[in-house]
């Protein structure tokens, strides 16, 4: 495994009176896709939101490129080079597709070459360029959400369940775009429930349960061991697919 760009050491996060993360230890290697898997309620989304500073950890360390980012606000963390695709997409419905993407380009102007790539990956965004984002379909909104994170080069992309609730054709489009992003050398930490998609994209995997990482290793190892999948995630049926 190459040197980690992101490290979590004993991260504990509470939401109101609930203890959600009970000490997460995670290394995210540079230039690879790390999948964060686990049952519902295992703490995957909370882990991403804690990295982004949307929830404050009460214990532990989060290091980005060796520098502590605990205690920074989400805007500061984003400006350190993290692109975030939240589970709820978080698009700005009243703004147009164009305005959503321009807003995400912190330099003020999206790079034309990157825009060409986004339009090639998600042609619908070009079609609806001047339309209000709120009028897009669910799949198009997800495309916009991903496009917004990748509109500029980032050190790390945090992507939370991009395939959730989408039709297979849309999932295939997203998978192609993410694969392309990976081939460009991007570092991605992605939460995904669709194990087929996780297998197709992931180089490394960390499995969570009850607010902790209970297993981590190469995706190839987990993908080839159905017993391990069943033991970690109860994936007997899914792994057959």
């Amino acid at each position, binding site marked *: 495994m190459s040197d980690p760009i992101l490290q979590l050491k004993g991260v504990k996060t509470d939401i109101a009176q609930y203890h959600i993360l009970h000490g997460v230890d995670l290394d995210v290697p540079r230039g690879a896709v790390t999948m964060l898997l686990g049952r519902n309620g295992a703490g995957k989304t909370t882990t991403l939101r804690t990295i*982004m500073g*949307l929830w404050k950890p009460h214990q532990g360390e989060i290091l980005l490129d060796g520098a502590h980012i605990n205690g920074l*606000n*989400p*805007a500061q963390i*984003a*400006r350190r080079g993290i692109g*975030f695709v*939240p589970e709820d997409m*978080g698009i*700005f*419905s*009243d*703004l147009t597709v164009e*305005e959503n993407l*321009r*807003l*995400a380009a*912190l330099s*003020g102007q999206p790079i034309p070459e990157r825009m060409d790539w986004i339009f090639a990956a998600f042609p619908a965004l070009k079609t609806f360029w001047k339309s*209000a984002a709120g009028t897009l379909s669910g799949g198009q909104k997800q495309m916009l959400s991903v496009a*917004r994170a990748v509109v500029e080069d980032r050190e790390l992309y945090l992507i939370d369940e991009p395939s959730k609730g989408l039709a297979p054709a849309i999932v295939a489009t997203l998978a192609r775009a993410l694969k392309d992003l990976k081939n460009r050398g991007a570092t991605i930490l992605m939460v995904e429930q669709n194990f087929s998609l996780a297998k197709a994209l992931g180089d490394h995997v960390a499995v969570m349960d009850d607010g902790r990482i209970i297993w981590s290793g190469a995706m190839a190892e987990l993908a080839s061991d159905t017993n391990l999948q069943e033991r970690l995630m109860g994936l007997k049926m899914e792994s057959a697919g």
Partner: protein
Amino acid sequence: MMNILSGDRPKSVILSVLLAVILLALAFAPFLFPGSRSLETAARICIFIVLVASYDLLLGYGGIVSFAHTMFFGMGAYGVAIAIDRLGTGYGAMGLGALVGMVVAGIVALLIALLSLRVRAIFFAMITLAIASAVAVLVSQLSQFTGGEDGMNIRIPRELTPAFRLGEVFGTRVNGKVLNYYLVFTGCLVLFLVMLRLVNSPFGRVLQAIRENAFRAEAIGYRVVFYRAMATCLSAMIAALAGSLFAIWLRYVGPSTTLGMEIMLDILLMVVIGGMGTMYGAVVGTAIFVLAQNYLKELMGGLSEATSALPVIPDLLSPDRWLLWLGVLFILSVYFFPTGIVGRLRGTR
């Protein structure tokens, strides 16, 4: 033209016509509608368009509910009044008063924003209400500076008063009052176009993004508190300038004309009727509301007379009930245009 409007097209033929009619009516009001009452109404519409638009910058674009907007309006008005009172009549004193009022409003808004914008919206609204009430009481108490409850009469330069006569244009006598009107009209037009530029700039887009999803905007890399504080300051400073123009126009400043909670409620109604988050909503909402405030009573009197032969209806349309019908109009407009008149005409939300 699109450059002047900062690329913000009305996006509706009816709305375009409506805006053009309002603009032309205001631009030629002294000649189209002679008489001091109609000029008074036109000036009030101009000033309230700016005041309501500046509140919409805060509420409609920033999603910030504040009850202190009239306080900033009052700061601009009292700035001019106190400056003239202390320095004597003159354009310099007027300008200095407006500038000081604007700066003080900006500083107070910044302090309120920094202290309060981190709390939940409802608490921010309550804090602004408390501060606005405290300032209103203070203005009443500090009568040696503010004239207390009686307010202050302002001696503006003679060129802006009815005593200054210029002659006749298109059969209308042009005097200082007309010049004063065009000062107000031009000032308001410039301030409105500045706001239009603001909301259509990257700053305005970030504000809209924050209104929709503050967490997401923060996660993209925008400091929500900074942008909200900026919006609060800009909105307050523009409201103060509107207040300065109001003081110059009325030649009087008092708590009831600038600081009253009734004015705050009127602003809220105008924003809602016109449509939140659309600068043009301020134009349409204000024009309808101020016209209704000023002429509904007469209109109802005429209707009551015209229907005097019918049972019940003349009583219902009695001019004394004009406030009731204003309320009914408001309820109907909210029911039929939940996104405001402009929102409905644009059909975007």
